């Protein structure tokens, strides 16, 4: 076991694999920054290059590329309020307001450092859990998966605004998300729902155009209306600093960062949940960490913890999602599905043998995630303060460039003009939601989880009848979900009481 751990590190530190990893990192860096273009599609594009490589060379190349995407995706999210990756949307919620306040450097420092910690924690957990991972994944069947999704949906209560009205709007927004997820051909009966005679809609709405529309278009409209820079009137000199502050923030809230990393790894291990979920659960956990009401209200307006949580979970998830891919040959996300094709090309058959015979190689993948993140974070830190100054570019120069990128990114999901329409429609929706104070994250969460929730509840009832509700693990997760759903109210009451005490004391 320990031998494999060390051998794995030595494998990727050899000249050739290391060199290929560096190339992968360079490619992944840009793919991550470009909105819409995801890590999965990139691996598919890179496949032809690996035929001539050995397994020791191909895996660092592909994995280095894939895991770096998540890290640099945060950069776009923070600087422009535009999701660089489908998995870095939650970083926007607090990261972009920070950029608007002129704290882009700090937000970036925090995002990068938390990414690094997330990658390390995720990889460590992966290394530790290799012996028990198989029974763990097999223990969670369709009913349990459904309950985990419910658990995810309960995060809406933390993602919503404050008070009764905030919660109501959050729930409505989440409900809308669920409805949007129903568009397309139903899996179980083949019935077409809300497709309006359009073949484009048979497949359902893709996540990138929806998310890009919801978040990017309002930002652009805002920039046009204000006609200013993203960072407003903040002086140029002040922007040049801050990265160090963000790094210190990461260690100030180390507990939170590590907890969010653990959330990310756990979600990653479960195959079939997709990459987009972990960030929201981590974000809502970050919100729950608020210690005073004022702090709670500060989330969404530029609290650095809102950047740390999703940043950490995204990269931790990478390690986690390797597990089902490697140990069962069952990919946890679309990127991993394509990676599995690469396994076969280089002559590896995923399965239990990867945890015994090829253990060193499996550990080398863990190390790739860690080492490539260290490299990209170090490199980024060198010029992070320069990147932050992008927020001082006049919006009229910035907008055409951003518009081009987001439409290209959205179009790459189906290569269909429908993608562009979806961006515009959800852009309008996002703009009005923002204007009228409706929270957008619940909508995204409902949209991501809606489809799989339906699948799992259907499979559970068909397979086990009504009895699936009585499975012990289902009941345990259900109670967890209840606690998560009620936590914001408990938190609020506790905080109120505490503050009253403070008022009396002096």
């Amino acid at each position, binding site marked *: 076991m320990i031998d494999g751990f060390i051998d794995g590190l030595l494998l990727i530190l050899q000249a050739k694999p290391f060199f290929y990893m560096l190339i992968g990192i360079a490619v992944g860096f840009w793919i991550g920054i470009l909105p819409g273009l995801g890590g999965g599609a990139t691996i598919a594009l890179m496949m032809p290059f690996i035929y001539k490589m050995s397994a020791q060379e191909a895996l660092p190349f592909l994995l280095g590329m894939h895991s770096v995407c998540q890290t640099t995706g945060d950069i776009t999210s923070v600087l422009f309020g535009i999701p660089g990756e489908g998995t870095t949307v939650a970083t926007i919620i607090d990261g972009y307001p920070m950029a608007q306040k002129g704290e882009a450097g700090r937000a970036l420092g925090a995002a990068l450092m938390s990414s690094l910690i997330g990658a390390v924690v995720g990889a460590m957990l992966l290394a530790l859990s290799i012996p028990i991972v198989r029974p763990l994944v097999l223990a969670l069947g369709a009913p349990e998966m459904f309950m985990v999704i419910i658990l995810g949906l309960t995060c809406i209560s933390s993602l919503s605004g404050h008070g009764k009205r905030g919660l109501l709007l959050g729930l409505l927004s989440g409900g809308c998300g669920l409805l949007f997820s129903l568009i397309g051909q139903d899996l179980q009966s083949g019935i077409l729902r809300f497709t309006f005679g359009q073949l*484009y809609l048979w497949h359902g709405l893709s996540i990138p155009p929806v998310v890009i529309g919801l978040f990017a278009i309002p930002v652009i409209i805002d920039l046009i209306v204000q006609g200013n820079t993203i960072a407003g009137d903040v002086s140029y000199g002040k922007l040049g600093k801050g990265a160090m502050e963000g790094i210190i923030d990461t260690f100030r809230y180390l507990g939170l960062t590590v907890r969010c990393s653990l959330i990310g790894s756990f979600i990653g291990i479960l195959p079939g949940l997709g990459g987009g979920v972990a960030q929201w659960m981590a974000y809502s956990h970050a919100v729950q960490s608020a210690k005073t009401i004022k702090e709670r209200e500060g989330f969404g307006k530029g609290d650095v913890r809102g950047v740390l949580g999703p940043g950490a979970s995204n990269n931790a998830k990478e390690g986690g999602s390797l597990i089902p891919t490697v140990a069962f040959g*069952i990919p946890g996300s679309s990127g991993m*599905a*394509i990676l599995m094709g690469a396994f076969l090309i280089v002559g590896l058959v995923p399965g239990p043998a990867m945890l015994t015979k090829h253990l060193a190689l499996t550990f080398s993948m863990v190390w790739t995630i860690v080492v490539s993140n260290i490299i990209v974070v170090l490199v980024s830190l060198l010029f992070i303060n320069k990147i932050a100054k992008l927020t001082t570019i006049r919006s009229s120069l910035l907008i055409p460039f951003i518009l081009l990128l987001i439409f290209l990114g959205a179009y790459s999901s189906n290569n269909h003009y429908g993608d562009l329409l979806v961006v515009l429609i959800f852009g309008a929706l996002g703009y009005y939601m923002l204007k009228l104070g409706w929270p957008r994250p619940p909508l995204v969460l409902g949209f991501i989880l809606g489809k799989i929730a339906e699948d799992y509840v259907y499979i559970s009832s068909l*397979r086990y009848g009504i009895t699936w509700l009585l499975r012990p693990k289902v009941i345990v997760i259900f109670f967890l979900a209840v606690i998560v759903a009620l936590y914001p109210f408990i938190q609020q009451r506790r905080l109120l009481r505490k503050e009253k005490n403070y008022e009396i004391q002096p």
Partner: protein
Amino acid sequence: MKKQSLVLIAVLTVTFIFSTPIKPLAAPFYEGKIVKLIVASDPGGGYDTWGRLFAKHMPKHIPGNPTIIVQNMPGATSIVAANHLYNIAKPDGLTFAAVHRGLPFAQLFKSKGVKFDLKKFLWIGSPLAESNVLMIRTDLPYKTIEDLQKAKTPVILGSAGPASSQTHFPLLLQAFLGINIKMIYYRSSSDIALAIERKEVDGKASTYGSFKAQVQSGLLRPIIRSRVSEPGIENLPVDEELVTDKMGKTLLAMRTGPDVSGRPYIAPPGVPADRIGILRDAFKKTVNDPDFLADTQRLQLEVQYISGERCLEAVTQILEQPEDVVKEFEKYVKF
């Protein structure tokens, strides 16, 4: 004098034009061109894997060695891509596509959105014929088709959806051989694989190739297959031989029709004869190319060249069934 020199110039010019070697015209059409291969599914699936293999190896066998790029155009089980190819793509030999083999059923049932006639496409060929096999977990007591007929509780089979051949095949077996089964639908093949590991489903019917690993590792046992065979399953009972009902035999034969065309490649109607000839020829040469075969072997894919004519023949056979057969067929097979 002036006139003479003019004539001279004219004559010289004309001779010059005609005597210049017509090199630009003799260059192969495909030289320096980019050929688009549309793959009608998401990146990462079986159709995509095959498509990228062809994009890599086929250019060698096309005179002029063009570059082939893969464009994924998923949606509506290939109807989107087929519509695009039929109505929008230029028939200049620079676009061809890999589509779902079940497309003939979409046209047969006049599904919504079908704006193409499969018989008019130019069929290039397929790198293999797919066989359908019903596989059950080895830890269960069902070893033969009789065991499945006698099963007291329904045997639960995972499938990729009601429009999938993974559903059609067992439903027809249920109707004409009386096996006791229940279908559950999953979103992807890997979800089904996991469900089998978790013992959430008892087995599945699918192409043999995609679940060969599970058979070899002893997790699944093949029980019955359709007409198209593959190395390793030749001795399994064949559905059409077991069924006695005449209509049953016809319907089973119809269902297995697309299996012959495995992973079909098509070009839009109207591509000039010489260019489609080049593409078909290159396709055939690619399938026999040792480098290509080495790659497929690494991906554990079986290869067997199926000609374009053979694919078209199979499709035509399905599309020309009498009305009453189609009606009966539609009871079990959806698109």
